[in-house]
């Protein structure tokens, strides 16, 4: 049984293309040197719930060998349609069967109530940062935590539009929700950077304003430069230098915390991808461990 404290060190987001390559680097239950820095694996429950056949076999293989975190995409915490409690019960079952200690989601929405019917759009859409939205989203996080019987973490999402009706900035919105829902933070370092370029704020100031005691783990990923003031969060490129700097800055400020590499498209061969996993490990090795965080999250 994995526990939350097993989600530590360096993680890798699992993509189907990577599965045979990772399996190839295992002798029975022991990984070889190339992949020895992978401490935990992240999966999207929407890719694995209810999957049988070879997918069930692959999942069982990873469950036996790695602590796993579930990072959801379709709960639609900010969505106008009713929270999908049927899906949440499937998530609960999935976490339990596969001994997965952690479920995280995005501070965004992926569904609507078009023509008075709920429907999924399968993308991460921007929640307007308003007081009303803080309470609405916090209530849905609390409802989620009640159904699951455990605390979840929410991720600061990447955005391209700040709704003109917004009455606060992203950091104020994020902190208000974390406090009101009393949930953990899944800190996405790349998203801080992407949003800082897209909306012209100082990424360091944002970083200094997040509640370190709530960080459960973080993400780094690559993005696509569409224009000098518009970055697209594709997870389809190498992690950029400013994002590595921001991660190093975060470790210097807060001490090392668990960090996972996301790569969803243009996936290079595993030995190339592992260089970025190794970079995270070396940044962590050079940083102090922060007892404040591990104590509070492990509690």
């Amino acid at each position, binding site marked *: 049984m994995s526990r939350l404290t097993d989600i530590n060190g360096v993680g890798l987001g699992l993509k189907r293309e990577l599965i045979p390559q990772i399996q190839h680097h295992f002798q029975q239950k022991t990984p070889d040197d190339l992949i020895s820095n992978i401490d935990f694996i992240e999966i999207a429950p929407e890719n694995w719930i209810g999957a049988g056949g070879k997918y069930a076999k692959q999942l069982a293989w990873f469950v036996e060998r790695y602590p796993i975190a579930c990072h959801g995409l379709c709960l639609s915490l900010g969505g106008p349609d009713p929270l999908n409690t049927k899906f949440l019960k499937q998530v609960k079952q999935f976490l339990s069967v596969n001994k997965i200690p952690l479920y995280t989601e995005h501070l965004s929405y992926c569904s*609507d109530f078009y023509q008075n019917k*709920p429907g999924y759009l*399968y993308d991460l*859409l921007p*929640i307007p940062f308003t007081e009303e939205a803080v309470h609405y989203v916090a209530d849905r996080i609390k409802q989620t935590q009640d159904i699951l019987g455990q605390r979840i973490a929410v991720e600061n999402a990447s955005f391209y539009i700040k709704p003109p009706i917004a009455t606060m900035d992203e950091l104020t919105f994020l902190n208000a929700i974390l406090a009101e829902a009393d949930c953990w933070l899944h800190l996405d370092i790349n998203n801080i950077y992407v949003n800082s370029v897209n909306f012209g704020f100082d990424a360091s100031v944002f970083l200094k304003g997040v509640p370190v005691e709530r960080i459960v783990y973080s993400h780094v990923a690559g993005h696509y430069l569409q224009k000098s003031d518009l970055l697209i969060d594709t997870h389809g490129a190498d992690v950029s230098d400013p994002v590595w700097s921001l991660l190093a800055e975060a470790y210097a400020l807060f001490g090392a915390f668990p960090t996972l590499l996301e790569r969803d498209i243009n996936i290079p061969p595993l030995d190339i991808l592992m260089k970025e996993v190794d970079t995270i490990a070396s940044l962590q090795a050079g940083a102090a461990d922060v007892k404040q965080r591990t104590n509070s999250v492990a509690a």
Partner: protein
Amino acid sequence: MLDFQQYQHAFTAHIRDPENNPKPNNVDEERMAVYREGVYNNIFEAASVCFPVCQETVGTNYWDAIIRRFIATHHASSPIFREVPKELVTFLEADTETSDYIKQLAHYEWVELAVGGMPTETPTLSKETDLLNEVPVLAPAHMLLQYDYPVQKISAQFRPEQQKTTHLFVFRNAEFEVNFIELNPMAYVLLKMLKEGMTGKQALTELAEQIQHPEPQAIIDFGYGVLQNLMQQQAVLGSYSS
């Protein structure tokens, strides 16, 4: 509706159907396009990988129009990504602009994905297989299907103009490969009966009665041959005594 939800409503309505719903006020067009294209590309990709023959048969522009209509009008009910192609099949079934053979072709293409990922439990089998006196056990991940068109033959070169009832047994073998077997109508009825829990002999005897065959033993012999053949192909795994 809360104020911020009114904005969300305008935002997603525009993403779904930009021709009929203007973007919210004071939103930058270039940034709005990121979301319109992002949603389109995601759904196009999730839905299209499953339907290569449909796409080739209707052509690129028509397929693009299908995806746009799907986004504009369909209320997808599943948060599970693997079920996005099923959402498209459901949409096409109700779509008045799509011809019947394309609807059925789309269903047929989706079946491979569905059977490949179907959750199953390991069936209990008797040590000695007896396909006639026991209940034959089908591969647990399977679908028994009837179409109005020869869906497995449709392509850009062959668009069926006339209906032809087609029966298929689609199953996943032990190596997780999905196989398709075309059945004659009698074999289809036989498998339907077996799914209801009849022994081989019960099903074949009833089948002989239904068609009022003068020599029921001939039907039993025929059916036994079918079952043995299915067993060789791993579509039937063995038998169990009920």
